[in-house]
Structure formats: C-alpha cells, structure tokens
C-alpha cells in the first residue's frame, strides 16, 4: 500500500459518500416513479369522469327525444342534437386515454357500436314522429313503449360499467404501487445512510488502528534508541508520513550509532595516546587528562587536577608559561611552546606543547610531548657541533696561517736570498771578468761552475718568488678578455714561437672573471711549454674554449712529445722535472705556477696525453657575469686580429 494516512481517511469518506449518494439516487428514482403513478391515477379518474359524461349525454338525448315524440315540440330535440355532435368526440378521447389497455379498447369499440345503434334508433323515432300526425305519434310512442330503446340502453350501461370497473381496479393497483414506492425509497435512504456511517466508522477504525500500532512501534523503537541501542531499527511498513517518520528515526539511529562509534574511537584515541593530551581551563586547572600524563610524570591524574597546573611547572618556566596561557585567552593557537613539568620523583621532564584555545568556553585543548630525550640529544649535538666547528675552524685557521706563513716565507726567503746571491754572482762574474785566463785552467773551470750554479740559483729563486706571488701578490678579480690575454702571451713568446715555426690557432675566446696578469701568465706558460716540448715537426697549438655551466673549459692542445700518464700529477709539483737539463732548459716551476693560478680562480687543471702523441692541458675558469651567458651571442667574445686565425 502506498496510500498516505490522509489518503486512507479520504478513501473511507469517499466510500461513505458514494453509498449515501447511491441512496439518494434510489430515492430520487422512486420519487419519479411515484409522480408517474400519480399521473396515471389522475388519468384513470379522467377516464371515469368522461365515462360519466358520456352516459349522462346519452340519457339526456333519450329523454329529449322522448319529450319530442310526446309533444312534438322541437325544443326537446336540443340534448339529442348536442349528443350527436359530442358523443363521437367523447369516445375518441376515452379511446386515446386508454390506449395502453387493449381490453378497454375493445370495450370502447363495442360501446361505439352500441352508441351508433342507439343514435339510429333515436333518429328513426324522430323521423317517424315527423312523418305525421297522430299515427306517427302513436307509432313513435309504440316504438318507445316497445322497449327496444331501453334494452339498448341497458347494454350500453353494462359496457360502461365494465369500463368503470376496469378503471377502478387499475386505480386501486396504482394507489397501492405509489404507496409501496414511497415506503421503499425511505427504507433505501435509511439503509444507505447507515451503510455510509458504517463505512466511515470502519475506515476510521482501520486507519486509527494502523496508526496506533505503528506509533506504538515507533515509541518503542525510539525508547530503545534513546536507551543507547543504536542498532535498533523500527520496521517501516507503509511509505506514508508515518513511514517517513520511521525512516527518519532509523536514519537518526544510524547516525547516532556512527556518532557513538566516532566518539568511542575518540575516547580510545584520548586514552591510548602516548602524547599527553589535556583540557585545561582559563581558571588555571586541568579539566581532563589522559593516562599518558600519569605514565610520564608519575603523578596520579587526580593529583594533577587537584591543584593549579602552574604548580607543576619548573619555577624558571612559570613566567613564560603564565604569559603563554594568558596569550591563549586572546590568540587561539600556541605552537611548540616548551616548558618543564615536575615528576612525582622531583625530576623534571621537558614538554613541547601545541595548544588551541576556545575563548568562549574558556578552555584550552592541548597536546604535549615529552621531548626531554630530544632536548638532551639536541643539546649534545649542539655541543658536539660547536666543538667540531671550533676544532675545524681552529684547524682551518692553523692551515691558513701556515699556508700564509709558507708563502710569506717563500717570498721573504727568495727576496732576501737575492741579496747574497747577487753578491755571489756579481763577484764571481767580477772574478771571471778580471782574472779569466790569468789563473790556471782549473781556476777558470771552477769559476765557470760557480757562475753557472749562481745563475741557476737565481733562476730558482725568481721562480719561487713568482710562485709565492700568485698567492700573496695577486690582483682583485675582474672581467678578462681571453682573446686579448692570448695576444699578450703570444707577444711575450714571440721569439720562441718564431724560432720553432709554431702555428697557434684558437676558438672564439670568451670573457672570464679573474686576474688578468695571472691568466696571461697561465696561457704564456702553457703555450711556452707546448713550444718547448715540441717533437720533430713544427708545433701546432690550438687553444679551445667551451661553456660548461657557470664555467669555461679551456684546452691547450699540442702535437709535441707528450707526457707519460704516470707523470700527470708530478708535472704540477714545484721543481719537478721529467727531462735532463741538457734536453730541455727550465726549473720545473711553470706548471706549478699554472696549477696555483687556476686553483686561485677556483678552477681545475689536468692533462690528457700519451708519449709521442702530443698533450692537451685542460683547465676551467669561472665565466664572467651571468651564469646563463651564451658564448655564441656574447659581445665579450674575442675580436682580436688573431681571432680564429693562425699565427706563425
């Protein structure tokens, strides 16, 4: 059933109304029949009336004729003439009135025949009287006296009486029918009304009982839900208003059940949490604490709620704690606040707090975590770090100092060594100048070795000085046009290049950041080396450059004698030589200076080579300006006369 309660009640009432209307309809039909019966009744009376009139008219006509015959006075013929005129019409009317009754029609036909015979007899009597005199009168009287006329009259009366009897019988029957009909109608009305009332009562009772039952179920169900049985469900039954109410109840129960589940989980969370969870009031007391508190601090929860929480805070942290709590009365959040809480055994634990306050309810909802161990390790780490840093910076300082000292030592030593060296060299040369050939051959040779040693020492000291100057006498970095410094370096090497017939080519060269003097020296040393360590063919030297991130990668490639990979590291060490003095001159300082210059520019230098196949020296230098500088589009590219060309 999908009817609402209202629809059910409506349906009951409709049924009742239909029953009552049916009663009224029956009554109406009966009334109409009654009216019809009454019309028929009137009809019968009219027929009887007409029959009376017909009979009296015949009597009047006979009486009139009789008078005429006796008196011969024509005035007596008036009723006869009237009857002649009217009686046929009367018969027609009666015939029409009783058309529904064939019995009566036959009787009327007989009556018509009898009347015509009667009328003929009367006319004969009149004619006989008219023909003459006393004889006629006698004849006529004779006629009258013969009784023929009376016999005819009797027949007519008999037929009329039959007609009257029939009509009276019909009248009786119709009266009875009218009476019965009206009684029936009243009874039907009464029955229908009763049925209607009963229908209403029945429908009402049904609906009432349905509603009562379901309301009772609803009441019981809600009582169970109210008692906490959220699994309880009320059977829904019909989907009417009550059904909807029941559904709403069931949904409410379901939601309450979910809420209860959520609340149970929240309780578990609160109880089982390892973090310290609490609710505290603006009045300075804890309102609720989870068991983690007792586990962490050793105080029973009851002991913690009994006194203002500030009493458990370390005396040194109380001011900050009170300030933080006061802050929470206006700002709603406090994050990572730390203070110390006293444990039952008198020790303190560090707690880190995250708090949210509800100003309206004057409550603070807080989660605290025991960070004592963390604090301890953090402090330890900080201490160790500080210690380490101190040691590192001390060591760094020592290193820097010893480095500086070494450089200064090298500088001072080479500088101050120059003075006595100059004396030695100068006076040896003076000796040579004045006494060569004046002493014996041995003396000349000794002086020769001494002069040679002094001049080599001079070269070494100059190199040492140059090397120490890379660190101590360097210029501030600025933009350096590598095309220009290559030209400068080649100018300095002009003689060596020309003598060896070397060809120097290069890529387009960029602008880098650095010390122009030192970078010139770097190129000069590398190209000088390439020229110096040439093979049997004239040197072909190429200076390459390509961008790699924020750096420029340079290469100086030659076709010289090359270097055995096992010496790659050694060639950058000071005064390390791979070849005898007779083979190649030099002190072995050049590449050490190169390494020091590149390192001062925070670059790297390395070699690629095989004996007999030439060598390539690679080094990197920081690019000038922006890191995203595009070498191809850069206006700082070298546009010197040797750009991309070949120098002899």
């Amino acid at each position, binding site marked *: 059933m999908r009817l609402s309660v209202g629809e059910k009640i409506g349906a009951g009432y409709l049924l009742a109304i239909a029953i009552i209307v049916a009663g009224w309809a029956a009554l109406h039909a009966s009334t109409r029949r009654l009216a019809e019966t009454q019309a028929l009744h009137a009809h019968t009376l009219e027929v009887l009336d007409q029959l009376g009139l017909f009979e009296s008219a015949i009597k009047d006509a006979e009486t009139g004729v009789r008078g005429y015959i006796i008196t011969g006075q024509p005035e007596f013929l008036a009723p006869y003439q009237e009857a002649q005129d009217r009686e046929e019409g009367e018969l027609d009317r009666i015939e029409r009135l009783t058309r529904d009754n064939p019995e009566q029609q036959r009787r009327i036909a007989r009556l018509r025949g009898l009347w015509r015979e009667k009328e003929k007899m009367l006319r004969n009597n009149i004619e006989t009287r008219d023909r003459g005199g006393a004889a006629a009168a006698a004849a006529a009287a004779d006629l009258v006296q013969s009784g023929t006329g009376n016999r005819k009259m009797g027949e007519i009366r008999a037929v009329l009486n039959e007609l009257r009897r029939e009509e009276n019988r019909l009248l009786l029957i119709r009266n009875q029918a009218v009476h019965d009909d009206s009684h029936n109608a009243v009874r039907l009305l009464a029955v229908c009304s009763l049925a209607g009332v009963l229908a209403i009562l029945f429908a009402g009772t049904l609906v009432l009982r349905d509603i009562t039952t379901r309301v009772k179920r609803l009441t019981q169900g809600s009582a169970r839900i109210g008692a906490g049985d959220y699994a309880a469900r009320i059977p829904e039954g019909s989907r009417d208003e009550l059904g909807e109410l029941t559904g709403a109840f069931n949904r409410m129960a379901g939601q309450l059940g979910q809420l209860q589940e959520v609340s149970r989980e929240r309780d578990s969370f609160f109880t089982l949490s390892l973090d310290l969870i609490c609710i505290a009031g603006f009045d300075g007391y804890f309102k609720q604490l989870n068991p983690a508190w007792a586990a962490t601090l050793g105080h029973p929860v009851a002991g913690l709620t009994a006194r203002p929480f500030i009493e458990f805070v370390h005396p040194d942290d109380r001011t900050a704690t009170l300030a933080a709590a006061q802050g929470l009365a206006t700002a709603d959040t406090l994050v990572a606040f730390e203070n110390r809480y006293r444990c039952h055994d008198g020790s303190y634990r560090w707690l880190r707090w995250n708090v949210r306050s509800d100003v309206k309810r004057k409550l603070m909802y807080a989660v605290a975590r025991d960070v004592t161990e963390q604090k301890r390790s953090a402090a330890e780490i900080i201490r160790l770090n500080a210690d380490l840093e101190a040691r590192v910076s001390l060591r760094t300082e020592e290193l820097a100092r010893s480095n500086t000292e070494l450089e200064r030592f090298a500088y001072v030593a080479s*500088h101050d060594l*120059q*003075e006595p*060296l*100059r*004396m030695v*060299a*100068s*006076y040896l*040369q*003076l000796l040579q*100048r004045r006494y060569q050939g004046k002493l014996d051959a041995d003396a000349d040779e000794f002086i020769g070795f001494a002069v040679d040693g002094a001049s080599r020492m*001079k070269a070494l000291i100059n190199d040492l000085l140059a090397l120490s100057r890379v660190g101590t006498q360097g210029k501030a970095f600025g933009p350096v046009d590598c095309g220009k410094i290559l030209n400068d370096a080649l100018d300095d090497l002009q003689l060596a290049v020309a003598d060896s017939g070397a060809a120097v080519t290069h890529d387009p060269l960029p602008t880098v950041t650095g010390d122009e003097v030192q970078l010139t020296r770097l190129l000069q040393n590398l190209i000088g080396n390439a020229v110096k360590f040439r093979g049997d063919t004239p040197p072909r030297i190429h200076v390459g450059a390509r961008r790699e991130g924020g750096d420029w990668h340079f290469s100086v490639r030659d076709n010289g004698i090359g270097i055995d990979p096992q010496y790659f590291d050694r060639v950058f060490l000071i005064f390390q030589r791979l070849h005898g003095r007779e083979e190649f001159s030099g002190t072995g300082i050049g590449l050490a200076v190169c390494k020091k210059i590149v390192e001062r520019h925070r670059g790297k230098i390395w070699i690629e080579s095989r004996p007999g196949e030439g060598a390539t020296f690679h080094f990197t230098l920081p690019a000038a300006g922006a890191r995203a500088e595009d070498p191809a589009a850069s206006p700082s590219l070298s546009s010197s006369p040797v750009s991309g060309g070949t120098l002899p």
Partner: protein
Amino acid sequence: MNNSAPPIHILLVEDNPGDVRLTREALREFKVNNLMEVAADGMAALAHLRREGANFSKPRPDLILLDLNLPKKSGIEVLKEIKSDPELMSIPVVILTTSAAEQDVVKSYNLHANCYITKPVELQQFLDVVKAIEEFWITIVKLPPKTGS
C-alpha cells in the same frame, strides 16, 4: 780621466760593503772625476749631509745614491728628511735598491725621489746602470748651483 774639472761629489748610502765595492768598481771605470763618500746607515747619512760632529768638513754632495733597506733609519725616512730640508731638497736622490716592490716605488716618488732603480742581479747590467746614472745626472742634467758650501 778628466782631472781639470772639480770632482763630482757622490754620497752612497749603503750598508752592504759588497755593493759599496761594486759601486766603487763601477765608478772607477767612469770618465768623470768623482769622489764618493759612503754612509753605512740612515743616521750616518743625515749626519753627513748636515755636517754634524766629525762631518763638519764634508762637502755637500752633487748626487745621493740611496738604498732603502738600511739599519737605524730606513731609506724612506732619510728621503723624507732630505726632501723636507730646504738646504738639502735640491740634491738629486737616486733610489738604488734590491726592492722591486710597488709600494716602495710609489712611496719613494711620493716623497720626491728623483728616480728609482732596482739593482740588476747581473754584474754587467749593474755596471751599466751605475754608468747610466753617472752619465745622466752628472753629464747630461744641469744641476742647481751648490749653496751653503
């Protein structure tokens, strides 16, 4: 040697006897008649120039060759005093030193040194330099007349 002209007086301020001797050797080969006096430190040099104590009879030099690295009073201080003394400021001072340090060069010229020369290590070059000094300052340059002598 041309002995007809009065000798040229040169004051060499130098603490290294080797350099003194080398300078003397170089001047020996020089054609102009010259007399070289030597002061071994800054104090002695100033005493000589101001004719203090035993120096009362010392002639005013025509040229001073001044080393910078000196005991007692450095060459820079000596230069400063010479160039701020109206009596002495007109004497040409040639700085002749082993130092090639830029700051020494700049400081010297700021104190109105007349020229700055780094001693060459090679004997021949040294001799050439001394010769060039003599030539330029004594035969080429017209010096102010001697005063106060």
